[in-house]
């Protein structure tokens, strides 16, 4: 029995190249899409206040900004495994270019982190401060979606 397991493991090891392609990466994709959903929900709290659609609430604004910063610290590489682009599988809009330009992609993610920190600094200081900080965040999202997210 032990032998068979060891043999099976050996075969599995040999086959990782082939297996990697058939591996189910849908969980990784769901996780990264989930992090973007968390971002969108918290931006919604801040953006609706900036636009005057909801009343300004310093505490809620700060909590939303803190959450954005928290998301920006999530370690990204495990969410973007090789073989999970829109060319490789269904259910994702991540362009293959991400894996050709990982450094640039990482710097665009870092740009989001900086914009989130800027929002964190000002979110509780008043409604007027949120609009400009939203502008910075919007710029960071677009800069990445421009190049790395495929059309619907």
């Amino acid at each position: 029995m032990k032998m068979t397991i060891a043999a099976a493991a050996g075969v599995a090891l040999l086959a990782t190249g082939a297996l990697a392609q058939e591996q189910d990466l849908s969980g990784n994709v769901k996780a990264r899409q989930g992090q973007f959903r968390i971002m969108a929900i918290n931006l919604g709290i801040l953006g609706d206040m900036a636009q005057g659609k909801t009343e300004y609430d310093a505490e809620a604004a700060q909590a939303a900004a803190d959450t954005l910063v928290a998301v920006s610290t999530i370690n990204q590489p495990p969410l973007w495994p090789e073989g999970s682009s829109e060319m490789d599988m269904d259910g994702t809009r991540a362009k293959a270019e991400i894996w050709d330009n990982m450094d640039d992609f990482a710097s665009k993610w870092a740009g989001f982190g900086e914009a989130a920190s800027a929002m964190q600094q000002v979110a509780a200081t008043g409604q007027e401060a949120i609009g400009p900080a939203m502008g910075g965040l919007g710029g960071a999202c677009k800069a990445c979606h421009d190049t790395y997210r495929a059309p619907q």
Partner: protein
Amino acid sequence: MRRLLAGVALAGVALAGAGWVLTAPDPVPEELLAGLSGDAARGEAVFTAAGCASCHHAPDSEDRLVLAGGQSFPSDFGTFRAPNISPDPDHGIGGWSFAQFANAVTRGISPEGQHLYPAFPYTAYAQMAPQDLADLWAYMATLPADATPNQPHDLPFPFSLRRGVGVWKLLYADRGFVLPDPGTPDLTRGRYLAEALAHCGECHSPRTALGGLDRSAWLTGAPDPSGRGTIPGLTPDQLDWSAEDIAYYLESGFTPDYDSAGGHMVEVITNFAALPAEDRAAVAAYLKALPEGGRLD
């Protein structure tokens, strides 16, 4: 599909042989341009709304105002490359006259009298007010010159023949505005921005087999020219956002549920964020006034 298109285009070229006169370039009447003097400061807003920089800035440049050209535009007919339109006298358009510029931008005619390809959206710019054209020309002369040489398009025969574009123009150019009688000043401005300057229809309307815009399905969405995915429809039955939501998207890139825009729309938003709020509101009002399903023509 490609075979069919090539066939149709070949027939077009044959027709062009028969109708050589019909397909000859038809320039802007001189009276229309006489006596105009351009204001560079006003021209900046025209330039921004018309999105000239979006296509003509160098592919990897951070500076959108250096109009060195070089970006590629894939299509069913081959790949087009944007030329240098900076004020450089040798490699750009610094040596051109205002009349030559006006003919290129609103009629798709080069200074040599050849047809330009409609990948350059001159069928939209044809609706541009002559004063705006003069202001635009004055503004463009103030931009930095760049000596990057033009790159050739990558087009198979028969699309490599510019004369064939004359047939295309007979079918699709000179058609005027799509939305009739806008009524209010706000809608008139919105229609001018959306249809003449910002050429929303070039991306958001479906095309016929010959690559002309299908005006009977105006702004109802289209396949993405990259070959994968679609560009969303903007008619009220497809886009149920409020006018305020549309204006905010054009300013920030945020959808009502705070997703963020991507792809070619990002350049459009960069442009509209730099325009006055009234202009964004006018375009939003225009979209809300579109008929359901885009049936206009």
